[in-house]
């Protein structure tokens, strides 16, 4: 594979590139290094507002790194270094003076393994609101929690045990609690890093339904290893792969249907038909 193929891929993006106001977030020649190792190279990615975008690709191709670069979670890794720009509301989040805490408040995250806080279900959601300056009364907080849990399709299951530990829930419920926790702080974008990889098929289905619901109000970016999931749930798909020096690059990006039925690149076709990866 050579660089010219990669450049073709960015040219092909024009199919989905619309005017700027439809973009929730844009990566411009994004590079991430771990020490001296270049993990992702020159990623150009414009994410559509209130759509679900899936990032797929073989293991180690840097999908998660791209995802975590979008809300500066990579800052928490001491050796990680990012160059290029990520534009959010026209503002480069890596610019001097931008507070990563503010970025992460506006761009929430759900992780691979369900990780509710070892607190009550109520506290799990209330905490995010409190730290972000929620000033309402107790009853307003109760309303917020009910609304959030309803949005996360969890209210009916937990309404009678809000004071139980979040850890007492099943894996799928825990993951929906994590999603509820993320939307409680009213972010613009929710990043999901393989949110279903630790869940059974039925829980996975519930989360996917929930994602479809949430995409009416939120922009969702999901990393997944499961191509059926990407095909089922996402509006747009970005396919990443590795170059010879093991740097991850964006190979192809387009409307999910088109990418799965009529991929422009040979390597994309090989991957989605299961010939490698």
């Amino acid at each position, binding site marked *: 594979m050579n660089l010219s193929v990669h450049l073709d891929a960015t040219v092909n993006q024009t199919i989905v590139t619309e005017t700027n106001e439809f973009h929730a977030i844009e990566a411009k020649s994004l590079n991430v290094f771990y020490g001296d190792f270049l993990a992702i190279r020159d990623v150009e990615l414009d994410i559509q507002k209130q759509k679900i975008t899936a990032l797929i690709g073989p293991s180690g191709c840097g999908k998660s790194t791209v995802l975590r670069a979008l*809300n500066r*979670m990579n800052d*928490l890794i*001491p050796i990680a270094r990012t160059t290029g720009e990520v534009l959010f509301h026209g503002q480069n989040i890596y610019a001097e003076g931008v507070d990563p*805490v*503010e970025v*992460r*408040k*506006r761009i*929430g*995250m*759900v*992780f691979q*393994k369900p*990780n*509710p*806080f*070892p607190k009550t279900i109520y506290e799990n959601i209330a*905490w*995010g609101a409190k*730290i*972000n300056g929620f000033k309402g009364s107790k009853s307003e907080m109760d309303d917020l929690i009910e609304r959030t849990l309803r949005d996360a399709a969890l209210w009916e299951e937990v309404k009678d045990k809000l004071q139980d530990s979040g*850890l007492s829930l099943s894996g799928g419920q825990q993951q929906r609690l*994590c999603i509820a*926790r*993320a939307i409680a*702080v009213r972010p613009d974008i929710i990043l999901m890093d393989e949110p279903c990889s630790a869940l059974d098929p039925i829980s996975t289905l519930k989360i996917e339904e929930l994602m479809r619901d949430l995409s009416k109000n939120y922009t969702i970016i999901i990393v997944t290893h499961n191509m059926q999931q990407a095909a089922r749930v996402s509006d747009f798909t970005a396919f990443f792969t590795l170059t010879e020096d093991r740097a991850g690059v964006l190979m192809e990006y387009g409307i999910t249907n088109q990418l799965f039925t009529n991929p422009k690149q040979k390597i994309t076709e090989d991957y989605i038909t299961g010939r490698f990866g």
Partner: protein
Amino acid sequence: MTNSPSNPRNFSSPNDDDLTRKDSLFKDNLAQRHRRGIVWKVIFQISTVIGIIALSTLLIKILNDTMGYAAIEYKKDPSTISSSGLPLDEMTCSELRVILAENVTKNRLRTIEREKPMVERSQSECLDLVISEVAEPTVKKTWPLFASLFNYEEIQSIAAEEYPGGDLIFKVWLSRAFILSPQSDDPLKAGIRTAILGSIYIIIIVIIFAFPIGVAAAVYLEEYASQSRINQIIQTNINNLAGVPSIIYGMLGLALFVRYLEPLTSGAIFGSADPTTANGRTILSAGLTLALLILPVVIINGQESIRAVPNSLRQASYGMGATKWQTVWSHVLPNALPGILTGTILAVSRAFGETAPLVVVGAATFITFDPEGIFSKFTSVPIQIYQWTARPQDAFRNIAAAAIIVLLVLLLLLNAAAVFLRNRYSRRW
């Protein structure tokens, strides 16, 4: 093919059997592997048994000294004290008071009345008072518990021969009176109250200083410090300090707290210096020295507890837009707290049993009054034990054993508190 469970070799199919039998690269060594396992199991069991034997020997040895027969001689025979001929133990308290007034000086009587008026004392208290004040018993010889139980006749004949005027009584050295009495020159009167109070004061100072400083340092090193050269040097030094012998800390405490910071540790700058001590050898110095001693242990333990908090919790917190401080305060510390508390209590119980640094810092070996505050002279339970075991008389060995039991019980209480906290607050994630 026979497939009886009693012969496991026949579990494999005939074909497999052929394969393994013909393959000369594998030899049939299952029996040998099992034998080796049994040998190691026996070695582990023997080690455990040796440990248990050593501990029980220690406990039995100590218990053996805490009670037994004691030969006691009196300066004045109790049976001749009473002028009326009535036995002492049938007299009322007021009658005993008359006897006391006849036999001791006015000053002494006034002191006794000031401690607790005679009218408020029970008959047995009055009796004990008369015996100790008038008859003035001294312990001549003591026998340990097992000898007392099994060789009573022999002990009786020795006592009758060597101390013809004396009494042979069965004395339980670890008693309520022992725990509640202050230090004394006479093993019959000596108690451990001043030492227990001293130890408690010291431990409170240790907790006040070592816990917040240790936890704060642990949080800094784990959550804030970068992997820079200087931080690595600090980390290495803390690890090494945890292994420095305690007497070195005693010398540091002597130089720093007792001598250099004397105005502070003696209370002089607060205007509350104890005129009888008027130097830095105070409870405050001792507490600060022991706090320094356990600080590295508290820090290292705190770091380990903080490191054990799963990273996924921190990520979840940051992912919601929490600052570092909010993450540490709301998630890291609450989840690390059971481990931090357990480790701190264990470190404190180590400080509780420390003797060497306190000897260097200048524990008073003979104080009969309770400490009044952090600027008082001090002694502690281990210091008292050390002191008593160094005395030549038999009876001091017995009260040392009693004091050891007191120390062990206090340490057990501390460790039980640690176990309780660990079980009460430990969480799953």
